[in-house]
């Protein structure tokens, strides 16, 4: 295939003035760029990149300077990855530290240095006790600070009131900032990034303001105590960083296909900093979000994820030099009989996932269609108020969700003094940490059990209403919390059953009295994993169906033969034809301008002449007006009465005529064609595997029509009995 020569030269100022402030000027769209909310042409981008590479390689033999330039070009990919890793790690560290502090701000403040969270404030204090590890006089709750009383009903009510007010303030600020500065910053971001990576253009979604606002409002949203996480938004933040650094190098900023390779790697860095797991980040990017993932992207993603994780560690937000968010060590093996409760937890995860997805979609639909959608700010404030009011009394919902999950994963030794670990200890016990034999539960554990049950119901219900609001929100942490609570409850139940009924058949084989059989923390982990699986599907339910993940099931039910293009519509029904003829014969610029002035053609087919209609090539609808409008800058002397030609050599004209305009470079000489008898499945396959935008249809050697990606999607929607009008932005 000989690639069309689309020269992507930078826009040149006609007078060469004011270069310093050029970034403030409105960028004139270049030939070969794409419109907003359309897909890119993967083949064209790939061939442009191959061209560029070939040009650089051939020039590198000329001089030393060219050789250095070619080396710099080759290394620019790694430099971009390094920068992405550094910035993502830094932003994630800032977010973690700020969330830590602001979450504690709802309850009290550190008197010695106001920027310390609760744990940091009591770091050096010697007044901490075994039972109350976080208590120290330097950190006071609001009631104690304002009235001087630490205990009592009045103090409780005052603390309650201030907790709710801080939560409302944070969420109000978050939604206002999102609304005023960057509406694209709301939601999780992963579905839209998946859409962008598959070739769609959403201008502004990965912009600088979106990056800034998403970072700032994410902290506010998480600190307000709402049931949401920060993992999904961190992926969006990392991809914004990727987009930001792409604009430094023309290799990536001018080629949408190469840019998406960088964005895939940036998504890996995002997950890596969210969980402190670089390999997990690469796997996430490979499996979930990327469309085009060549092998070198694998290495580059890993590099970016590593750099991001190490940067995060250098900032050390967790204070324990550990990378991973949830660090657990279990030393007892698990037994085959424990598979039964594990399977039960898996079933619970599936049921909860189904409930959540259905309920959330129904609620989102209500938000779209009824009055609820008109008051986003009020909605956020109302949900935050309800969440704060219901969350404060239960100590397990009052604290941040990550802390809750950490505590639930934790294995109880003698060193723990929390309510959940209130087991009856054998005073002669010699091993305080590992391998403690099963113990009977004390009253604290039973207390914790019913509080956890209430927390589970609360979290299940409130997350349905929280996800989808107009603030940055992630779904991973709330799902894990639901699973961890359920798992821990099941684990404690099994543990106590094993202790009190160790003579039953099931337990007799595996559980001897005095041995450590059941680890409830492990059950919590299994539950969290089970619940994390289901709503992930939710985050990939794109609001706009724009990628081919679902696939076409092929034949319609009525017909016996597979549908082909001959039996299909060729364009929007009843509207003007999609294209026009352009011939190889010379036309004038003003005629062309008249042609494109009123109608919006998808494309122009260039034929040898009107009589023979032998097909020469294809011009994209958007490129022709752009090329004509830019022509006075590129070639001197072109005026309205200039002749336009598509051939290689200019036509012979009398010398009095003005300079002719050569438009061969926007002509695609090798567009993809299929015949009208091609089965629809093959057509869909071609579109999917090659990443085409449009395909020409011929019949008996003559050009019949054009089919675009959106037409194929509409057909697929009809096949699945969905509304084809929901494919929007025509």
């Amino acid at each position, binding site marked *: 295939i000989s690639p069309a020569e689309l020269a992507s030269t930078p826009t040149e100022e006609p007078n060469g003035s004011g270069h310093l402030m050029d970034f403030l000027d409105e960028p004139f769209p270049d030939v070969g760029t794409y419109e907003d909310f359309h897909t890119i042409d993967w083949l064209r981008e790939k061939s442009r990149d191959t061209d560029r590479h070939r040009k650089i390689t051939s020039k590198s033999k000329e001089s030393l300077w060219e050789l250095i330039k070619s080396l710099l070009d080759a290394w620019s990919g790694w430099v971009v990855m390094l920068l992405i890793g550094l910035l993502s790690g830094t932003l994630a560290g800032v977010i973690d530290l*700020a969330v830590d502090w602001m979450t504690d701000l709802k309850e009290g403040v550190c008197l010695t240095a106001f920027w310390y969270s609760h744990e940091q404030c009591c770091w050096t204090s*010697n007044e901490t006790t075994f039972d109350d590890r976080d208590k120290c006089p330097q950190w006071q709750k609001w009631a104690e600070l304002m009235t001087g009383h630490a205990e009592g009903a009045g103090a409780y009510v005052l603390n309650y009131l201030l907790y709710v007010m801080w939560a409302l303030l944070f969420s109000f600020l978050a939604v206002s900032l999102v609304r005023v500065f960057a509406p694209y910053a709301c939601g999780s971001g992963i579905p839209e990034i998946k859409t962008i990576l598959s070739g769609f253009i959403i201008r502004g979604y990965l912009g600088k303001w979106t990056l800034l606002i998403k970072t*700032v409002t994410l902290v506010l949203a998480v600190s307000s105590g709402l049931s949401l996480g920060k993992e999904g938004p961190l992926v969006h933040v990392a991809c914004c960083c990727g987009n930001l650094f792409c604009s430094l190098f023309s290799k990536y900023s001018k080629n949408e296909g190469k840019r998406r390779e960088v964005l895939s790697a940036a998504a890996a860095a995002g997950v890596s900093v969210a969980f402190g797991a670089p390999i997990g980040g690469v796997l996430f990017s490979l499996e979930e979000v990327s469309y085009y993932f060549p092998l070198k992207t694998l290495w580059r993603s890993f590099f970016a994820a590593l750099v991001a994780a190490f940067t995060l560690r250098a900032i050390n937000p967790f204070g324990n030099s550990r990378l991973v968010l949830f660090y657990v060590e279990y030393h007892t093996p698990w037994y085959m009989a424990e598979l039964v409760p594990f399977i039960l937890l898996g079933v619970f995860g599936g049921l909860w996932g189904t409930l959540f997805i259905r309920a959330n979609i129904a609620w989102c639909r209500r938000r779209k269609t009824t009055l609820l959608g008109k008051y*986003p700010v009020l909605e956020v404030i109302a949900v935050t108020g309800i969440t704060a009011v219901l969350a404060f009394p239960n100590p397990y919902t009052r604290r941040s969700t990550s802390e809750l999950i950490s505590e639930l994963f934790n294995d109880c030794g003698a060193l723990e003094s929390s309510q959940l670990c209130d087991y009856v200890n054998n005073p002669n016990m010699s091993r305080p940490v590992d391998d403690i034999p099963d113990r009977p539960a004390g009253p604290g554990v039973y207390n914790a059990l019913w509080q956890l049950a209430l927390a589970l119901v609360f979290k299940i219900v409130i997350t349905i209403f929280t996800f989808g609001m107009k603030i940055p929100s992630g779904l991973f942490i709330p799902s894990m919390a639901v699973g961890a609570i359920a798992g821990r409850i099941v684990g404690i139940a099994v543990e106590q059953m094993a202790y009190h009924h160790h003579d039953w058949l099931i337990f007799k084989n595996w559980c001897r009295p005095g041995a450590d059989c059941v680890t409830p923390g492990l059950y919590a982990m299994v539950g969290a994993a089970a619940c994390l699986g289901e709503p992930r599907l939710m985050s990939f339910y794109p609001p706009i169906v724009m990628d081919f993940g679902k696939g076409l099931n092929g034949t319609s039910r009525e017909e016996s033969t597979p549908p082909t293009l001959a039996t299909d519509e060729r364009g929007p029904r009843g509207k003007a034809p999609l294209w026009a003829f352009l011939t190889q014969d010379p036309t004038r610029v003003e005629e062309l301008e008249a042609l494109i002035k009123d109608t919006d053609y998808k494309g122009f087919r260039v034929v040898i002449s009107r009589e023979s209609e032998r097909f020469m090539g294809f011009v994209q609808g958007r490129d022709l007006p752009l090329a004509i409008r830019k022509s006075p800058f590129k070639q001197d002397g072109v005026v309205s009465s200039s002749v336009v030609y598509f051939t290689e050599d200019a036509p012979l004209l009398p010398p009095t005529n003005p300079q002719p305009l050569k438009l061969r470079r926007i002509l695609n000489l090798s567009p993809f064609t299929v015949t009208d008898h091609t089965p629809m499945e093959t057509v869909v396959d071609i579109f999917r595997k090659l990443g085409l935008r449009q395909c020409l249809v011929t019949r008996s050697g003559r050009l019949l029509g054009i089919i675009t990606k959106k037409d194929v999607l509409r057909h697929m929607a009809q096949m699945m009995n969905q509304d084809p009008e929901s494919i929007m932005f025509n």
Partner: protein
Amino acid sequence: VSPMKLKNAKSLICDLLQNSEDIRCKCICPPYRDIEGQIYKQNVSLKDCNCLHVVEPMPVDGKDVEAYCLRCECKFEERSSATIKVTIIMYLSILGLLLLYMVYLTLLEPMLKRRLFGHSQLIQSDDDVGDQQPFANAHNVLSHSHSRPNMLNKVEHAQQRWRRQVQEQRKSVFDRHVVLS
């Protein structure tokens, strides 16, 4: 220069670079016989982070020390208080600036524009019925300043262009609910 002076200088520099409060060894000792559980903290270095150095005063006598210490768990932790301070203060200042800018855009600027351009602008703005949001009149108002390509105008035009983009985004996300549900 004597070696003692060199050593002093080195420890002084070390102290300056790293706040000595930023390291600690934390030992948690569970209840033992009739002694209740305790937490001990001291800022010692990593090699001294064990029960014998940190647990002071030792609550048990000679023979029991080993049994007591076996139950205790000591961990070395470090943090960077400077990082925390810089991060929080930087975050708060950025948040403050954004809030000020937001207040300016939503409240002050329409008031100023109304005063500067009078009522003629108000009539024009009534055409945008229902568009009460910020940046509603983005393109109208500053078209008064004619194209002299100096820097101030360029900044204004860039800002107007940005506002138009944000308005478009807001329409598709908040009003029509077509993106991001």
